[in-house]
């Protein structure tokens, strides 16, 4: 076991997979010479060379589109979109091309490709650079969408994503690259489409993913002092969505809080709550609480920005509320 950061975990996964299979290559804006704007691909160009570490023009549709073509043609590309906010410029290729290729040609084509991209707000980058639109991408069958909450899961999930033959959107979070966690030694993968209980507790089920996982852990420590033990279920994958551990936990606690960084309306919480009501109606002892971003475009001003974003305290309050 080693304790490493989220950034290191992702970087290691990429490096190890590129070593393992020469068909794996990366492309994106500033991934080569610059070393990646979040330093994830620092050192890759020197080691793997310009053929396999490709700096692209600023052309998101081409970055994703050419990854699709390269994957169909036999390579295993890992494309990077500098932030998920730029994914909209490649929207057609992500949800309308990549997600459909295997299906609409009767299974002839395989897309062993990964799109890595960080989302999230909190660095005063203002409205168009700070979004968490994960739910939108999770809406489309044919695409796999994962968003790890711990370094161990980040490393294992990225390796798995690279190794499978389906297109995967791998969503990172820009403000937790320094988050530390224990990561197993050696080669390991984490299955896509499996949620995980990250912390056990008997009073409230807290469903979270990505940045809300470390936030929930902090909330857990605060609540434990009041004698409240929360159980944190980390979704890890948004599509496919694994509700089994969530429902099992809910049948135990009868009360749930769902935490996400995106907006509340039409968000991940909407789907998870609907499924809990569907699959565990007779176990519901209180309405499910959702912790999410306030329904506003994110402002530049630091204080206002933090007011809009969901905080640890919001999770704590929601847990107390659901226990009323």
């Amino acid at each position: 076991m080693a304790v490493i950061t989220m950034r290191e975990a992702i970087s290691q996964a990429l490096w190890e997979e590129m070593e393992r299979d020469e068909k794996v290559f990366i492309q994106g804006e500033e991934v080569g010479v610059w070393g990646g704007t979040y330093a994830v691909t620092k050192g890759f160009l020197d080691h793997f060379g310009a053929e396999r570490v490709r700096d692209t023009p600023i052309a998101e549709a081409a970055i994703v589109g050419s990854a699709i073509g390269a994957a169909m043609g036999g390579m295993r590309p890992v494309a990077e979109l500098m932030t998920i906010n730029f994914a909209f410029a490649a929207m057609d290729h992500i949800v309308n091309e990549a997600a459909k290729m295997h299906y609409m040609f009767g299974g002839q084509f395989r897309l062993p490709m990964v799109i890595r991209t960080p989302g999230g707000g909190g660095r005063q980058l203002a409205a168009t650079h700070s979004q968490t639109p994960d739910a939108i991408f999770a809406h489309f069958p044919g695409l796999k969408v994962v968003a790890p909450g711990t370094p161990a899961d980040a490393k294992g999930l990225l390796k798995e994503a690279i190794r499978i033959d389906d297109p995967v959107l791998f969503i990172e979070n820009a403000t937790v690259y320094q988050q530390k966690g224990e990561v197993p030694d050696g080669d390991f993968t984490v299955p896509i489409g499996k949620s995980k209980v990250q912390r056990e507790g008997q009073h409230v089920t807290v469903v979270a993913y990505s940045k809300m996982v470390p936030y929930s852990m902090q909330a857990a420590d605060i609540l434990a002092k009041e004698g409240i033990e929360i159980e944190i279920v980390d979704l890890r994958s948004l599509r496919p969505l694994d509700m089994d551990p969530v429902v099992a936990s809910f049948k135990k606690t009868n009360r749930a809080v769902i935490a996400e960084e995106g907006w509340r309306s039409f968000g991940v919480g909407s789907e998870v709550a609907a499924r809990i009501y569907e699959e565990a109606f007779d176990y519901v002892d209180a309405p499910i609480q959702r912790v999410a971003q306030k329904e506003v475009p994110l402002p530049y001003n630091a204080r206002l920005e933090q007011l809009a974003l969901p905080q640890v305290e919001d999770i704590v309050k929601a847990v107390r509320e659901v226990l009323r």
Partner: protein
Amino acid sequence: MANIVEMPKLGFDMAEGTLAKWVKSENEPIEKGEILAEIETDKATVEVESSYAGIVLKHLVDEGTAMPVGTPIAVVADEGEEVDLDAIVKEANAESEPPAEEEKAETSPEPAAKEVVENQSDSEFIKASPLAKRIAEDKGLNLSTIKGTGPGGRIVKRDVEKAAQSQSRSAISTTPKAQITPGVDEEIKISNLRKAIGSRLTESRQSVPHFYITSMYDVGEMLKTRKQLNEGLPKDERVSVNDFIIRAVALALRDFPNLNASLSGETLIRHGDINVGVAVAVDNGLLTVVVKNADQKPLTQISQEANAMINRVKAGKVKNEDIEGSTFTISNLGMFNVEDFVAIINPPEAAILAIGSAKEIPVVVNGKLDIGWRMRATISADHRITDGAEAAEFMQHLELFMEQPWRLFA
């Protein structure tokens, strides 16, 4: 609009009922779904909900009065409504003249569509979480008697569990027994329930040719198994000896269809389901709760169901389906240190099994004197349906299940 409430039909063969108790007094407001009165039938005392919202304008009958199904019993009107009470009552009484046969058709429960409920607000509904509702139903608790401590007065799990605990405590306490005051004769009117039991069993005794067979069972293994099983279970889920016997009898009956049967005229109906009735003592009488398909349910499920039904009986909230459909009855007086006894068959069943207490007594095993647990059981059987040999075979077959408890889990 003023509405007449009538004596409801609470069972398929109910002809008359007694207004045992008014829950809502005259001039008290009532919501749709709230309890208006308690009605006593020959089977049980049942709470009756009001189909109307408004003010209980008038009680038309006194407590303790028996009357046919369909008889007007109360008037519920809108708040502030002017009602010509005499006219309504006269009209209602005139309508109640027709013979009982027709009334049976007319007095089926009011369909919800007919109600025009005005001023519908949140306060009409009892706010309870789905979980609380489910627990309350399982435990036979009435939500309207539980105080909710959740937001907005919502009843939640902790409220129902609290109510269940205090309920079981009060259920255990027995009603003060009657005592004889020297020299004073006391005259008591027989309750409907007692009347019903009396007429049914008189008929049984007079028309059914009973014969009896007593067997003694070595219940040592059964008691040991029960102890082991209960070690792993929480206090309110423990299995009783009676639960074992229910399952044992059900499994034994599989090979004796004649004993799981009813006589209807000259047709013998051998029932496809084995529904074991268990006699439960109540104030002034006896009710039989029924564990349906007892041969197909695991022991723990039989135990849960029997417990829940017995609790409902003791709380006076028994459901119709709890007491109907029995194909074979067990009467257990073992808790009173009874050696053995003979029971009267519950018509139209073919037989009834009377269970005595399990006792440690001297026994002979392999020519040596030893101490063993023994229990006596006596079957009363209907000689029109079966005969001594068959009934005796049944009692012998029952031995397998009473003495080898592993068979109950197979």
